[in-house]
């Protein structure tokens, strides 16, 4: 299966990058952009056809490695390749 994982900063955690991008957009004349938040997006192929198993694996991966759950939250989607 194919896994698509989004890792984003938790609410209220400072996002320096988002802040800088918002500032840059503004000075480029894109005045109407707000609350820019930047996160990570990951794709991978999983050698696993059982959806439930795949889910469990991806969740583990996020908890263990892909997301820093101290400051980040994650969500994922699974799809057939």
């Amino acid at each position, binding site marked *: 299966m194919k896994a698509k994982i989004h890792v984003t900063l938790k609410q209220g955690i400072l996002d*320096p*990058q988002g802040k*800088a*991008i918002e500032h*840059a957009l503004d*000075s*480029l004349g894109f005045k109407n952009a707000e609350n820019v938040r*930047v996160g990570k997006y990951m794709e991978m192929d999983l050698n696993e056809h059982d959806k439930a198993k795949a889910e469990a694996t991806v969740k583990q991966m996020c908890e263990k490695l892909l997301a820093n759950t101290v400051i980040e939250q994650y969500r994922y989607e699974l799809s057939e390749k």
Partner: protein
Amino acid sequence: MKFGVVIFPGSNCDHDCQHVFEDVLGQQVEMIWHKEPTVSGLDAIVIPGGFSYGDYLRTGAIARFSPVMNAVKEFAQNGGLVLGICNGFQILLEAGLLPGAMLRNRSLHFVCKDVYVRVENAATPFTGACKPGQVLKIPVAHAEGNYYTDPVTLAGLQANAQVVLRYCTAEGQVTPEANPNGSLDNIAGIRNAEGNVLGMMPHPERSAEEMLGNEDGRLILASMLESLRKRPLKMVGA
């Protein structure tokens, strides 16, 4: 000669460049705030290293939009010498003054150490004082020096001798082990087609004084001086 050193928010080798041109090479230096829309009376422009805009989004991505960059472009189009060091190189890439882009270092780590580079083209305003194939010891300090461009552009760079510096061993062998960041073809520095714009990851300003244990970088800066002296008297941008 008068060198302009551009200061972006987050530049941090600006003082080092000022020091090396003023105190070591005895030249005039004008510090240029990034909001300046025009420059004048300069013989060359240096875009120093650092973390312009924190390197957020992509290194150099935000800095390229600073007003001063239009002036730099114009200066370059009129044949003025532009040297981009480290973050300055990355900015020149984002600004389209040089082809290609930077990826994260293969190691994913910031790397600060002396490396060796081989002068692949000694017939540029930035390497005139070097012998062809000469090996220079110059420090690098970056996390995104992994140069990339598409095969066609790369072929073009090679064909036009636009690859000016390549990472090599102390003996001058261009090997994967000698490559500190995984850059394509061991590229450490390239010039534009016209030859008046150079971007390089290593920091010549950090290796231009005996007290710092290494003077090889000085050759790059001295080359610029030399070529400016030889050049027909026309002050670019003036």
